[in-house]
């Protein structure tokens, strides 16, 4: 089924196996009235599954029933697991489902799931016209009524702000100390997100016009009152560096600080033990790094974390490395050294390391060879005859 890519477990719990949880049956329960109405289907469906046989039709009653079933199923699940139904969160639900229906499938989306119907069934627009066939919204015949109504509202706000500005100027040249809305730490909604919000398709051009209009609104001096309106269409960005886990520093018997870390790059794995001794010697698998990496390029890779933080002669390293080739071993060592150095550094330095790309594991691996081709991308020689 296109909509629910995971098997919804809520219905299974309710019916206890007497009825299969497929939604095909429910579609036959539709009344003739519903079938005769044309439902505008959201763009999300179009995008998610183009191979499906036409868009799905879910009525409001159906969705409501699904929500009820979900809630009751949640309580049943809580009882099964022996926990309090009142304080059963979505996380607990996920945990319980993973416990009751263990699955070894690789694709996470193929595993059993039980979520609120709003997350499973894509949002659809409710019926747009009344019993007499007359549409509710005045912009219905534009085709993209939510988009145009949004633009209409925004323009109204822009005009209001301009009018207010003119009024203020006419009162006297009062220095405006209204601060503009701070945009740091947030970004405009992407086109897909806006589509999801408006539950209708918009084109690139429309999206560009929308962003242009919002920028114009923000450029006006007294737009503080529209802050909430604007924030609805901006998404907060999380601070990346707060995700980094920094292990605390350990001290060995002589009081020398040391730290260990692992690194991996393209089937080469390594572990590094960095000691805050004072000599700049690094030994890899028991051998000197000069002998292990005769190529300058690999030694430069090793040098990069130290050089970046100006700590070239400070640390003493003991590394073990295996797998991969020469270059991937050097890359793995570099990552491991950067991670090991984190515990010696301050927050600002950690952030600068992250921005330099020293802490990002390189996701590139060898691409699989496909049948019918000579390699991953290379095709066989094309012969005309």
């Amino acid at each position, binding site marked *: 089924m296109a909509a629910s890519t995971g098997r919804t477990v809520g219905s299974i719990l309710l019916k206890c196996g007497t009825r299969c949880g497929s939604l095909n049956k429910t579609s036959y329960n539709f009344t003739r009235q519903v079938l005769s109405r044309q439902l505008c289907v959201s763009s999300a469906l179009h995008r998610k599954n183009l191979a499906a046989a036409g868009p799905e039709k879910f009525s409001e009653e159906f969705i409501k029933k699904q929500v009820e079933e979900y809630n009751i199923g949640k309580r049943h699940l809580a009882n099964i697991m022996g926990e309090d139904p009142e304080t059963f969160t979505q996380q607990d639900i996920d945990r319980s489902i993973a416990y009751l229906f263990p699955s070894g499938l690789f694709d996470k989306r193929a595993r059993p799931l039980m979520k609120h119907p709003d997350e499973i069934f894509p949002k659809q627009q409710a019926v747009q016209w009344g019993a007499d066939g007359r549409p509710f919204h005045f912009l219905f015949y534009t085709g993209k009524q939510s988009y145009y109504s949004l633009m209409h509202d925004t323009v109204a706000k822009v005009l209001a702000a301009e009018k207010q500005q003119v009024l203020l100027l006419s009162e006297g040249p009062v220095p405006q100390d209204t601060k503009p809305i701070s945009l740091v730490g947030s970004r405009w909604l992407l086109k897909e997100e806006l589509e999801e919000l408006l539950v209708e398709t918009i084109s690139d051009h429309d999206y560009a016009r929308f962003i242009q209009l919002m920028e114009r609104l923000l450029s006006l001096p007294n737009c503080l009152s529209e802050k909430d309106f604007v924030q609805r269409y901006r998404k907060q960005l999380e601070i990346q560096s707060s995700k980094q886990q920094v292990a605390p520093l350990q001290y060995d018997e002589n009081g020398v600080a040391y730290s260990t870390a692992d690194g991996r790059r393209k089937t080469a794995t390594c572990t590094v033990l960095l000691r805050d001794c004072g000599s700049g010697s690094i030994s890899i698998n028991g*051998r000197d790094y000069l002998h292990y990496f005769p190529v*300058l390029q690999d030694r430069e890779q090793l*040098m990069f974390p130290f050089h970046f933080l100006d700590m070239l002669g400070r640390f003493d390293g003991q590394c073990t490395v295996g797998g991969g080739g020469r270059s991937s071993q050097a890359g793995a060592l570099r990552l491991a050294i950067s991670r090991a150095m984190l515990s010696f550094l301050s927050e600002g330095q950690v952030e600068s390391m992250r921005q330099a790309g020293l802490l990002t594991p390189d996701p590139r691996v060898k691409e699989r060879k496909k049948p019918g081709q000579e390699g991953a991308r290379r095709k066989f020689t094309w012969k005309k005859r």
Partner: protein
Amino acid sequence: MWRACQSERHLGQYYTLPTSHLHTIFPHGLPARYQQQVKTFNEGCVMVRQPALELISYLKAADYSKPAVRYLLYGLKGSGKTMSLCHTIHYCSTQGWLVLHIPDAHLWVKNCKELLPSSYHTSRFDQPIEASNWLRNFRTTNERFLSKIKLRQRYTWTKRESTEKGSPLGELVDMGVSRVKSSSDVVGAVLKELRLQAAETEESEGFRLAVAIDGVNSLWGRTTIKKEDKSPVAPEELTLIHNLRKMIDNNWCGGAVIATLSQTGSLYSPSSAYLPKELLGEEGFDSMDPFIPVPVSNYSEKEFESCYLYYLDRHWLQHPHSENEGKKEIIFLSNRNPSVLERLCAFL
């Protein structure tokens, strides 16, 4: 020019080799990269380092009425063994010794173009080209001795040619250079004569003999030379190697044998081997035993500073960061290994 008065005070400092010496003493002895450096800088400067000083002090203190002492320089690849050897040779020649310098014994056991069966000994093989080259260089190095030393024995080369007893060594060497076919035997004869005559003390017009061999581990390893029936030639079957081995045996007096191990040119040995036991093998170790090992290591802090300052002084390091920031990087990247440092600075 501090020829004989180098002592520990001068550790880490550079001294200049006079150009005339460079041509006479080292026609074939210096490492290739160093020769290029000499050409670029228009002068040859050698750093005074601990292993060379140690060797020179041993040579000064040795007793030359006893059998020849053998010294072996060993160390990691590129740490300066050949350069220390050259330094010692320079010292010896300034002291008036006769220097027998074999620049790279590995050249004699591989890539031989011509292999003749020896006329002297049927089971052995000659290498005329290498032998004649070496004789030519030997002549350049030790000009003044050639007329002084007289042969003790008569050598017959063919039915018509022979060298009489009492004729100077120079004649023998010239004959070897011109008659390429018998040059390997000439080499053998030269070595034998020198061995016999070095035993005499200085009063009776003797001389001290310094045998300097670079890459001595090739004498006991394997060769890549093949006979006509594609079977490999053992080192003993080569005349040159056979005679060299006789030189290394410490049954003669009045000189010293200084040798270096070299992994770079050696055949069939792993690149991580640098200790004498590994590179010489059982047989080689037994023949060299007893010897005085002299380890050569990477530059120390002071030596590195000195080398760096020398490059800066010669304007070899052109990068604007060379003064301060680049130094630490270079230390890290080269780990103070002399050859790696030199290669690194080549493009800075």
